[in-house]
């Protein structure tokens, strides 16, 4: 089933409590997907690059040298980053298997990701100047507490609660997906894609890599491919309605915009609230009411619609 949510504040760079907002929205939709929860949060944009990566899964067996091994892998990642000319200014270890690295780097992000992901067990969840993807098993409150998201402030965010149908319950199968190798682009999706393998083969031939077996990852990489050819977010999303097959409602975000697309069948729900100060959208109105606590005018976008908002 899965539940998706998005929120974007409409007044520039001013910070808002998006970590708390998204937790409230996702927790109220826990019944749509109790397996895992994910966030893509946009903090204040800066010059540094923020990398979120994991070295193991929450439910991986803890063998006797688990922590030593993860420590070794993390040091290896840091040494590879330095070898590529990046300056590491901060490393935060939020769990024993996930970390957030802040670095100064102006080279090619694809090189950086490929080099880092070559380390055993390492997966780059997100890379960008403001984007941070946090995903783990459990409901929104558990993930929020584990990664201390309650105080996260920023401009816009998307989130996902997952009921796994097409692939495993693990961190790489959880949403949101980062659009490797493009900074600050992420996607959450509710639905199934039926031409997944065609697109996967096609995109792999143009040297994109896939982290997971999850069909939703196609959307992120597809949009990245389109945008790398110079298309705007909105045009890429419109093209996806023709080229991706299946049932889907997905939300895509960039550093300054948030967009939603709904397939030709309108088979997956989405409720939309456009206020003066913010736009909130979710699979169920109950999630929007978790952050806008008053009677509001909401509506369902129609089939084949693409809507994009700038912050």
């Amino acid at each position, binding site marked *: 089933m899965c539940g998706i949510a998005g929120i974007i504040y409409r007044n520039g760079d001013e910070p808002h409590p998006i970590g708390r907002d998204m937790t*409230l929205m996702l927790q109220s939709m826990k019944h749509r997907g109790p397996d895992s929860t994910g966030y893509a949060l946009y903090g204040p944009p800066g010059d540094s690059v923020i990398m979120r990566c994991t070295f193991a899964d929450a439910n991986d067996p803890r063998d006797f040298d688990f922590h030593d091994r993860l420590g070794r892998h993390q040091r290896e990642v840091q040494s590879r980053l330095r070898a590529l000319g990046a300056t590491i200014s901060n490393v935060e270890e939020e769990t024993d298997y996930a970390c957030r690295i802040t670095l100064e780097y102006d080279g090619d992000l694809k090189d950086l990701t490929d080099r880092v992901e070559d380390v055993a067990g390492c997966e780059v969840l997100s890379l960008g100047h403001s984007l941070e993807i946090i995903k783990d098993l459990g409901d929104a409150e558990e993930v929020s507490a584990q990664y201390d998201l309650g105080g996260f402030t920023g401009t816009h965010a998307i989130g996902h609660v997952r009921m796994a149908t097409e692939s495993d319950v693990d961190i790489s199968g959880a949403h949101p997906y980062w659009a490797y190798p493009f900074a600050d682009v992420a996607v959450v999706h509710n639905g199934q894609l039926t031409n997944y393998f065609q697109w996967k083969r096609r995109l792999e031939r143009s040297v994109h890599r896939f982290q997971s077996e999850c069909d939703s990852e196609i959307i992120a990489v597809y949009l990245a491919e389109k945008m790398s050819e110079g298309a705007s977010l909105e045009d890429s999303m419109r093209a996806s309605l023709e080229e991706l097959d299946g049932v889907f409602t997905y939300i895509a975000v960039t550093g300054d915009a948030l967009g939603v697309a709904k397939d030709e*069948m309108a088979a997956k729900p989405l409720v939309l609230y456009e206020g003066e100060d913010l736009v909130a959208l979710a699979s169920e*109105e*109950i999630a929007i009411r978790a952050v806008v606590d008053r009677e509001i005018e909401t*509506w*369902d976008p129609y*089939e084949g619609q693409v809507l994009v908002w700038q912050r």
Partner: protein
Amino acid sequence: MAAVGESRITYDARGLAEPDEVVPGISEIDGERAVFDAADLTTRGINLELRSLLYEQGVTDVTVRNPKARHSLGVGILTRCRITFEGSLGYFGCGLIDGPEIHIKGRVGWSACENMMSGVVVIESNAGSLTGAALRGGDLVVKGQVGARSGIDQKGGTIIVLGSAGSMTGFMMQRGRQILCGDVGHGLGDSMYDGTIYVGGKVRSLGIDCVPGEWTEADTEFVERKFRIYGLGDPPELQKFVCGKKLYNYDKLEPAERKLVL
């Protein structure tokens, strides 16, 4: 605003939500009228309170404040009464009802009034997809727009929509009427068996076996009467669509059987 983790839903071993809920008993009752604030109640608490008022305490007019877009409110009410929701409902609102007159002063989510048998539901704002699915009787009035597949499998009753409607409206409709004042999406009345759909705006495309019908005096009388009852003003210029009856092939043989006979 509720803090994170404040109201947790409990489940029993069978997965039944809120198994130990009791009738909250918080209504202000004045003769046959009652009012209660649902802000701090669970979904099950709200429905238990409604049932207790209507079935046990002789109340016939209930106002529910702050429904806060929760799912499955006001379902399975099988008595003549009047219910007002002062706010929006979530999914499956007012499903399986038989008899009530319900006024929703907000929006409803997917599958509102599913399988309604009789009564009246008036929704002041928009409605989601699958509105009035398998409707069997009664009147459903939506003053805003509706999503896709409204009146899917409709078996009776009337659906009136003042705004636009999405794709596959009236899909597999079997009886009853729909008055859609705005534009309509793709596949209107796809595979309908019977019934009538009136459309005021543009139709993006007709579904399989849905054809324009001939307008009669009875149609004018019907539409004007419904608009008068609900105070909707003058009806717009409407087109009529009915079933072409080309898919009526129940008496035909399967291809393999035909070979045997011929």
